[in-house]
């Protein structure tokens, strides 16, 4: 782009707006972190400067880990996220590969249907699903959410993978076909190993979406031992009108860390997925 601005102009054009957006985006996390480290006397005292820490303490973290089921919730969240991500990737490939590579009657219709299902928000379906889960006697089991999360993750992964698959050149597959490989062999041994970046993008997205899910977990999981982190934090750390803000912030921060960590490792894949899979299709 055009270069050669002076330092003042650069400050106005670049660092002021970028700094503004950064402070806006990050302040709530800063506030989470310092709240979780403040002793209660400091938290609930209006005469102390609130923006800095005076006497840091780990008390809220210790209370959170010893007096609540937070570790169980974390384990549940991870288990559900990993299993439903795996299901979504496998089913996603099974939908996306034929749609990307084969010619058959109805392909266009299926692609449209998958895209449409991806866009159906959960609030449209949660009431009948709640009844269905009850009738199947799956209430308060992790199976209930492991079965229902892929309803949004499968179409999503399929759509993202479809976009990725179309960018992979077809020559290798054609060569394998000429050499006599069946379609299944061509897909499994030649094509899929080329698609690791696509799987990473779709996987991270599915994983973050399952960590973020709240409505189904709220409805299906009402016992503490099976809850996920978001539901556990809302249902058990807010007791009536009493807010344990230190513990709540400690829980919010610890609950965000797995997603943030995974995201930081694969941020380029995430951005690539965000900009190609969800947008260009």
């Amino acid at each position: 782009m055009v270069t050669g601005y002076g330092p003042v102009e650069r400050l106005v054009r670049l660092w002021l707006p970028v700094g503004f957006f950064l402070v806006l985006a990050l302040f709530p996390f800063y506030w989470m972190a310092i709240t979780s480290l403040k002793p209660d006397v400091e938290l609930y005292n209006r005469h102390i400067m609130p923006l800095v820490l005076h006497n840091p303490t780990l008390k809220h973290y210790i209370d959170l880990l010893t007096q609540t089921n937070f570790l169980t919730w974390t384990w549940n969240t991870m288990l559900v996220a990993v299993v439903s991500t795996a299901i979504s990737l496998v089913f996603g490939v099974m939908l996306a590969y034929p749609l990307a590579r084969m010619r058959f009657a109805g392909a266009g219709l299926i692609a449209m249907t998958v895209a449409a299902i991806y866009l159906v928000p959960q609030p449209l379906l949660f009431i009948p699903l709640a009844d269905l889960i009850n009738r199947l006697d799956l209430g308060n089991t992790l199976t209930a959410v492991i079965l229902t999360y892929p309803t949004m993750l499968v179409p999503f992964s399929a759509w993202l993978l479809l976009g990725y698959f179309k960018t992979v050149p077809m020559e290798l597959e054609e060569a394998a076909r000429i050499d006599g490989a069946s379609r299944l062999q061509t897909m499994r041994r030649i094509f899929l190993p080329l698609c690791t970046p696509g799987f990473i993008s779709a996987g991270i997205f599915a994983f973050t979406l399952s960590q973020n899910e709240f409505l189904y977990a709220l409805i299906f999981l009402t016992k503490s031992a099976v809850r996920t982190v978001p539901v556990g934090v809302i249902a058990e750390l807010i007791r009536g009108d009493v807010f344990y803000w230190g513990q709540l912030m400690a829980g919010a921060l610890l609950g965000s860390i797995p997603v943030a960590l995974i995201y930081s490792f694969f941020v380029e894949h995430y951005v690539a997925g965000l900009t190609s899979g969800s947008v260009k299709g």
Partner: protein
Amino acid sequence: MSVRSEPLLAAARPARRGAPIGLWLDRQSVFSWLMMAPPLLFLAALVGYPFCYGILLSLQDRPVAHPGTFVGLQNFITNFNDPIFWRVALNTFVYTAVATLLKMVGGLGLAVAMNQHFRMKNLVRALLLLPFIVPTVLSTVAWMWMLDPAFSVVNRLLIGLGLPRPGPSWLGNPILAMFSIIMINTWRGLPFYGITLLAGLQTVPPELYEAATIDGASGWQRFRYVTLPLLQPIILIVTLFSVIFTFADFQLVYVLTHGGPQNATQLFATYAFDIAMGAGQLGLGASVALAMFPALALLIFALTIYMRRG
């Protein structure tokens, strides 16, 4: 390519395409439908069936744990005569429209600001996306604490800047509560807009700007006549996305205000939840949720058509 030839041959060997069943399986249509059958059946069972069942429920008087009785369109008539229902419709409309507009304008600003060369750009981009990554419920709890009636840090900062004590009641005043949920939704969704539009901006060829500059275009004119028209398809898609998911938002409002005060922030999703899960009226709740369907169907249809073309 030559490096790859070995596995190709190895893969080829076991396949004897002589057998009739093998030939049949190798037909594109047979292979495709067999491959897609398991995920399609899964989606039919857990999306298609619940959707149809939801329509059936909306035509029933169905208290939780009791068998339903068919009541025709009675639930929809009840909704039509329920002032809260219309309040909810208005709330949802205002929430979606204002939040989407703010995200669009803010996201464009963010994208333009980020579309410059500077050090640690990737780190900044990663940090800016954090609000979008972190589970909504958890960041909303943080906002709840920041807007707490007694210890709000926002108010303490505002009072520090000269506002009279005790500062605004962000979640207690109906208008401010709506304002708060809109701002927090914007806070969370803006990075998605910004980073997606940034990716779009980066595909604009620099020659176009150079040509415009040579023709004497000002900075605003370059933005208005070069950037905006080229970004238009992406803006449209992102906006439709954002409208769909803002329109059906649940988490943020459920956590922050529970729809209060006096239904001032009640949206379709939270209202349907209250009726179905709180009051145990599955049928009536399903009819409230289905009231979202016409608008959603239009939006989803528009977006799928558009994504297929793009």
